[in-house]
């Protein structure tokens, strides 16, 4: 899909076509691409079954066959979803910049500020390596500490790749639960941190830094051509980085799917084991893996009897709290504040884990 769009932009003749007709052509290309995508997507399962049991003639009930069918169906499905969602998220994010988000959050009070910051954390482009300049830029221009934390928690925790994988492998309900609980944790944790008044545990030089308040280096107007190209850039950047992990994860998942006996995980990660949720969080916090590699494995574990809450808690602590990010934030935060941050977020994840194990 992105290939067609790219060719269209690069075509020098395109500039000679009047704007109205060009827009029509664009809409036509987009619709054709969407139709082709949908046709392929809806027929994947049929194709996988045909290939494994028909063309390859493998017997039904065979373990290898079941593993291969799983892979042939899930891998293209997840990659196709990833393509579309990352492209869409890239376009949505072109409407938001950290500068704009800061302007919207400056001077906000707690509660309403926490809600807004968590929502903006999802749609604002953010890379954990800019966490420090962003943190200082926020707190020195009147964004309250707790509100800043809501943003810093939501931004990595709610991840579009994780959302795609959850939707593709578990269905929309689990994806919605992940989105909803992730937002609630970011709001609540930021609110708690704000109430605790921990400003004294921010390194002293942070508040002494006077930032140039003018938002520089950002164009005020962005055209749709630029938005589409930023969607394409997101696809290039994220999908090219993530696809080997997705395939590896689905391959491991396929192995578990075919070979690990039913209910094996029930005793270790099932609802009955109360200690499984805290254990999952404690193991997950220092781990730093992209969601892409972990979720397919987790899906297979779930199928074998692990409890959803436990699995969700594990995943959230892996992607929401990571050691590299904590090390980066140590430059601006004193240890007690880092400890509170990790503690409050970890506690939130713990509650989510138990909640889902009880409810579902």
């Amino acid at each position, binding site marked *: 899909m992105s290939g067609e769009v790219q060719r269209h932009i690069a075509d020098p003749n395109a500039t000679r076509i009047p704007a109205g007709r060009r827009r029509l052509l664009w809409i036509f290309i987009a619709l054709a691409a969407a139709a082709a995508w949908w046709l392929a997507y809806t027929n994947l399962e049929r194709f996988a079954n045909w290939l494994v049991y028909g063309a390859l003639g493998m017997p039904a009930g065979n373990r290898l066959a079941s593993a291969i069918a799983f892979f042939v169906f899930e891998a293209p499905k997840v990659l196709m979803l990833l393509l579309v969602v990352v492209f869409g998220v890239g376009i949505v994010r072109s409407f938001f*910049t950290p500068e704009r988000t800061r302007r919207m959050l400056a001077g906000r009070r707690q509660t309403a500020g926490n809600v807004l910051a968590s929502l903006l954390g999802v749609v604002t*482009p953010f890379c954990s*390596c*800019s966490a420090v300049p962003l943190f200082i*830029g926020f707190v020195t221009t009147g964004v309250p500490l707790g509100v800043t934390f809501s943003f810093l928690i939501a931004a990595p925790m709610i991840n579009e790749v994780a959302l795609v994988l959850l939707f593709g492998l578990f269905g929309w309900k689990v994806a919605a639960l992940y989105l909803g609980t992730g937002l609630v944790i970011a709001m609540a944790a930021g609110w708690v941190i704000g109430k605790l008044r921990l400003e004294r545990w921010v390194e002293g030089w942070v508040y002494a830094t006077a930032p140039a308040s003018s*938002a*520089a280096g950002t164009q005020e107007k962005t055209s749709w051509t630029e938005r589409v190209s930023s969607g394409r850039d997101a696809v290039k950047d994220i999908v090219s980085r993530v696809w080997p992990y997705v395939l590896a994860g689905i391959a491991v998942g396929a192995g578990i799917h075919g070979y690990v006996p039913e209910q094996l995980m029930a005793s270790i990660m099932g609802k009955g084991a109360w200690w499984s949720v805290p254990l999952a969080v404690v193991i997950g916090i220092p781990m730093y893996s992209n969601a892409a590699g972990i979720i397919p494995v987790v899906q297979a574990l779930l199928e074998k009897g692990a409890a959803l809450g436990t699995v969700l808690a594990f995943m959230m602590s892996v992607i929401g709290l990571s050691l590299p990010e904590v090390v980066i934030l140590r430059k601006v935060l004193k240890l007690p504040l880092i400890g509170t941050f990790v503690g409050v977020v970890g506690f939130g994840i713990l509650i989510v884990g138990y909640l889902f194990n009880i409810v579902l």
Partner: protein
Amino acid sequence: MKIEVLGTGCPKCMSMEQNVKKAITELALQAEVEKVTDIQHIIQRGVLSTPALVIDGKVVLQGKNPTVDQLKDLIKAR
């Protein structure tokens, strides 16, 4: 001409520095390239997301890692 690349040392910042050098060589320009890693320095420029590109003291781009061709256009526009 003085070009600064602002960044704390993430992979994107390093790739931007290399792309800037490539762009300058391809344009056959005389320009001084400096990598700024000091956080306070970066903040004082009003930069929120890295990597950022500063040409002759003016922030022209931040939070993006443009291609060499895009960098050439930005440098020529100055």
